[in-house]
């Protein structure tokens, strides 16, 4: 170890279950690779921008490698649209550099503040999953430092087991040093967005089934505070990158057409009390949000930030939940299990689950990653204040429904699932464990999540 470690208390974005570790901050690829050498007794895990909600990127009593200073594009093919970037490169930086050149990242989640390494370790998905799959579908190669001291270049052909075990592998197969991935060509940095307001769940699902495939990007915001006849009412936002001629004439110069300069408008102060998010405030917020959306609007021009990353406009928005923090619960159930989806939504609505901005999305095909989350079906993600509540019990019960329907939870968001459900959710867990045993026989790569779930 060349870089000295400082003891820091780390938590995920939800701010729950913090733990302390020796944090190292390598500033070069060599140092990043060296961070796996001489591992402490309690192991090593890499951490990017800390946007996983739970305890995936923390390692109590061990070493945490902050990769964010190992950032930058290593190689760029602007003709083919292929980029190689260091593991700590954020999607935000990639967008700042590439959007003006006419290229977009292949997948973006609801925040730009994730790293290339984190994108692989969680096999992140976004609004284009139904068409384009998840992040690792677009990765052609990655460089991985293994605990034994080897650095290997892994492609889906060279070592498919290791490649796909690393895709969604929670950082537990090695430290990712860099990755090569495809880019998506764009003419402008704006999107043409169609908005539809649906009165209930049936209408929401029907509309998504019927016409999602006409759009590369699609997601529904669903109001979980609305009970009764309007249960499942949603605002669908679907769109595609705008062609140059869709912009007003004055914006068609290359500088303007592909301008991308996102800024945060505010930082949430660290003053929010526990309980600010309560049934009253959330019902009011959701009602307002629903009403301000047009019933039907076609072809509205929106920026990348407005369409993909609205929450990024408020830095540290997670503070709104107060010191007790919050958790996100995201599950997927296969197509054909709409009744399960309905039962779960109905149970959440009845409980008054105080979730604003719950998100519903139709997934497309799965990829070969044994721990990759998406599978063809419906995924719902919602935020819940943490701390003691009856909701914990409800969610526990709903986990069983998800499992019974052949679904699963997204581990990047998890901070509370019962470990005994994991094998049912990820039936190929043993395959993944076998790869892990091969590349990390001594169990050097460890995280709080791995301990909690007995991975």
């Amino acid at each position, binding site marked *: 170890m060349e870089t000295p470690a400082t*003891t820091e*208390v780390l938590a995920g974005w*939800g701010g*729950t*279950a*913090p*733990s*302390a*570790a020796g944090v190292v901050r390598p500033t070069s690829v060599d140092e990043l690779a060296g961070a796996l050498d001489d591992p402490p007794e*309690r192991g090593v895990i890499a951490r990017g921008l800390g946007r996983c909600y*739970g*305890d995936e990127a923390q*390692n*109590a*009593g*061990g070493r945490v490698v902050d990769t964010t200073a190992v950032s930058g594009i290593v190689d760029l093919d602007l003709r083919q649209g292929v980029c190689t970037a260091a593991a700590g490169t954020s999607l935000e930086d990639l967008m700042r550099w590439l959007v003006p050149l006419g290229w977009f990242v292949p997948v973006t989640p609801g925040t730009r503040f994730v790293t290339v390494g984190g994108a692989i370790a969680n096999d992140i998905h976004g609004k284009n999953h139904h068409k384009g799959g998840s992040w690792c579908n677009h990765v052609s190669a990655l460089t991985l430092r293994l605990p034994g001291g080897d650095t290997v270049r892994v492609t889906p052909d060279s070592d498919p087991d290791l490649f796909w075990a690393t895709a969604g592998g929670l950082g537990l197969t090695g430290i990712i040093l860099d990755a090569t991935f495809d880019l998506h060509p764009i003419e402008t940095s704006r999107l043409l967005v169609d908005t539809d307001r649906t009165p209930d769940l049936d209408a929401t699902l029907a509309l998504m089934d019927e016409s999602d495939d006409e759009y590369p990007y699609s997601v529904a915001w669903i109001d979980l505070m609305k009970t009764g006849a309007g249960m499942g009412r949603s605002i669908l936002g679907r769109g595609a990158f705008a062609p140059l001629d869709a912009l007003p004439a004055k914006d068609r110069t290359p500088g303007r057409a592909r301008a991308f300069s996102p800024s945060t408008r505010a930082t949430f102060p660290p003053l929010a009390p*526990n309980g600010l998010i309560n049934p009253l405030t959330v019902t009011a917020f959701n009602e307002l949000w629903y009403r301000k959306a047009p019933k039907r609007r076609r072809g509205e021009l929106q920026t990348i930030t407005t369409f993909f990353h609205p929450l990024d406009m408020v830095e540290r928005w997670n503070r709104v939940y107060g*010191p*007790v*923090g*919050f*958790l996100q619960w995201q599950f997927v159930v296969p197509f054909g299990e709409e009744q399960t989806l309905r039962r779960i939504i109905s149970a959440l609505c009845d409980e008054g689950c105080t979730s604003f901005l719950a998100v519903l999305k139709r997934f497309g095909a799965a990829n070969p990653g044994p721990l990759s989350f998406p599978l063809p079906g419906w995924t719902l993600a919602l935020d819940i204040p*943490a*701390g*003691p*509540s009856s*909701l*914990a019990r409800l969610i*526990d019960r709903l986990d069983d429904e998800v499992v019974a329907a052949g679904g699963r939870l997204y581990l990047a968001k998890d*901070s*509370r699932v*019962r470990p005994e459900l994991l094998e049912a959710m990820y039936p190929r867990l043993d395959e993944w464990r076998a790869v892990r045993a091969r590349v990390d026989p001594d169990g050097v790569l460890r995280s*709080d*999540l791995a*301990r*909690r779930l007995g991975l």
Partner: protein
Amino acid sequence: MRDAVGGVQSVLVLGGTSEIALATVRRMVDQGCRTVLLAARNPDDCLAAAAAVREAGATTVDTLAFDALDTASHGTVIDEAFTRHGDLDVVLLAFGVLGDQAEFEADPAKAVAAVQVNYVGAVSAGLHVARNLRRQGHGTLVVLSSVAGERVRKTNFVYGSSKAGLDGFAQGLGDSLVGTGASVLVVRPGFVHTRMTEGMEPAPLSTTPEVVAEAVTDGLAKGQAVVWAPAPLRLVMSGLRHLPRPLWRKASERG
């Protein structure tokens, strides 16, 4: 590891026959805790509780010998507890003796023995636990203090002062652990109906082990440093704390 809704996966009880501790463990197991270690002077005294905990759903249940008075053995016993079944999310420091004030005054050696358990033993065990939690990078030491230590009464000042010392120790230890991932939760129950208090006249706001247990698990979930059981005691005591001495003497004449 702890989860986001306050659930813990593993707990060690020092003083594994304490009714408050066992009520707390039951609650934790109910919320998903699977590893329970019960430590007592005579581990056989914990066998019935161990069986009940296993029945309730814990999968790894173990008992071990721990003598609060034998401080020289604390390091080995506690280190062993921390390695036997992996990480410990919570350690409940629950041993203690109430004793009888009149007896203490008649035989000061008995008072010394009680203070050795309640304070000296707790300081020793607490420090060994803290060292392990610090190494582990997470976990909470839950210390069963008492309102009797908040303002010591003439009718049980030996017990009360041992708890006052323990309470101060636990708060200071908690402050010293900030930034290490480990923490301390100080629990201040009022009069609790248990074997310990059997036959005594209950004080106002008397409570049950289950109420204390709920205060502990809620306090853990919220990451609190101090909890009172029942909660209104906090207000009551903040008033009584500032009562002039003559009035306090008068007010604390009962039991």
